[in-house]
């Protein structure tokens, strides 16, 4: 039963991810991206990583894609010119992706030992993650905050509104 649900959501994620790339209209791509994140969040739920799945929806689907859509709406994108991709390019890129996938699979299975099952590891509860975050990983946490602060300043430097905008 769990395997069936897992297969369904994995397929869903993959299909919507393909939809992101293959859509003609950029807004459709953004929408497919939201669905893809949903699929990912459901997969996390299946593994019992509830906190991670909710944060995934909160931040990825709820903030990042919103940002994308804002940008798309503000910049009036022209329709891309229709241009059929050459067949050779499709073949070569598929070969490249397959090779990469095989390499990754081999490397991961070597390092993890076996493919993890769908049982919830006991260490993944919210409380344990939180405790870890503030004991063992405290410094990375604080450094991340400084990084975010740098981002804030950077955004302003890059996207300063023009001087003509008087209050």
């Amino acid at each position, binding site marked *: 039963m769990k395997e069936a649900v897992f297969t369904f959501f994995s397929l869903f994620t993959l299909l919507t991810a393909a939809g992101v790339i293959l859509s003609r209209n950029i807004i459709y791509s953004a929408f497919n991206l939201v669905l893809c994140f949903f699929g990912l969040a459901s997969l996390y739920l299946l593994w019992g990583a*509830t906190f991670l799945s*909710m944060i995934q929806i*909160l931040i990825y689907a709820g903030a990042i894609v919103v940002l994308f859509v804002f940008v798309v709406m503000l910049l009036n994108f022209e329709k891309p010119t229709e241009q059929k991709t050459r067949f050779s390019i499709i073949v070569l890129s598929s070969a490249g992706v397959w090779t990469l996938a095989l390499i990754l699979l081999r490397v991961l299975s070597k390092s993890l030992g076996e493919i993890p099952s769908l049982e919830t590891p006991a260490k993944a509860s919210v409380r344990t993650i939180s405790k870890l975050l503030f004991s063992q990983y405290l410094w990375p946490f604080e450094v991340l905050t400084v990084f975010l602060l740098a981002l804030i300043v950077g955004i302003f430097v890059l996207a300063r509104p023009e001087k003509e905008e008087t209050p």
Partner: protein
Amino acid sequence: MTLIDFIIAALKAIVILVAVIQVVPVMIYVERKVAALIQDRPGPNRVGPFGLLQPVADALKFLLKEDPIPHYTNRLLYTLAPFLSLIPACLVIAALPIADKAVLFGREITIQIADLDVSLIYVLAIGSLGVYGILFGGWASNNKFSLIGSLRSASQMVSYELPLGLAAVGAVMVFGTFSLREMVIQQEGTLLGILPNWGVFYQPIGFLIFLVASFAETNRLPFDLPESEAELVAGFHTEYGSMKFATFFMAEYMNLATMSGLMTVIYFGGWHLPWVSDAKLLEILGSQNLLCIIQVATYIFKVSVFMFLYVLIRWTLPRFRFDQLLTLSWGSLIPIGLINIVVSAVLMYVLGGK
């Protein structure tokens, strides 16, 4: 995973969803009647006794009207957008705990659709998805006023999700859990002997921030500039007729019900009666199911108080200007939220775990 389990699960989902959807016609009537009372006029009184069948008339009207789709719009998105608002509004009710257990078919059923151990984050996350219906609706309408309205509304919703989250962080600090059900269970009994042990007495500022932010999140006056009836026509849903328009409204009222529900659950004790503890009630009543009914009734009463408050404020206060709205969020609510967290943290440290 027996059949009975499946039936119970299906019953829970469907019954609670239908109950929340019923809020919509009730709110339509209440809103217009209360608006009328505030404005010193009778309000709907033609359709049925005291105008009580008004929502039915409205629903029929919406269903039977033509559904024009303007030219040059992106048809798929135009049709999809109202449902993008409705789906998160329907999904978010899953985390609200309505009552404690009921005993049916020999099992204990918790009256809540999904008791995740992270239900608070679930609510925040699904709530943040409500922006998409507005964004796509405005964009797909091929109307620059809709576009402006939707961008402003989206900015507003997005700016007020942060104070909402910060107020929620305060609540999480006090209760020590993300699960809404746990929070309600902890709010039993009395505090210092006189006050009911409700969240609002632990986090009064948090409650105020949450209250203000929830007005903005649901696009209600005094924050409804994006749908301002006099300025931008009807904002991002200018181009939507009949049922699609009605769908946006259903989503808005359901969001209202959810926000009211959240406030009762986090700050006002959820299903608990003020000074009486559940165990005592169980003694008096004898039956768990009877207790459950009283709990549901208490919950509904508290939620109704908040919904009434929403309507009251809508017809009382004037509207904010857009930059005032943003300054309120980034300049006032977020700093107050942060200060609330610091003060609560320090107090908790000093009092050793309040």
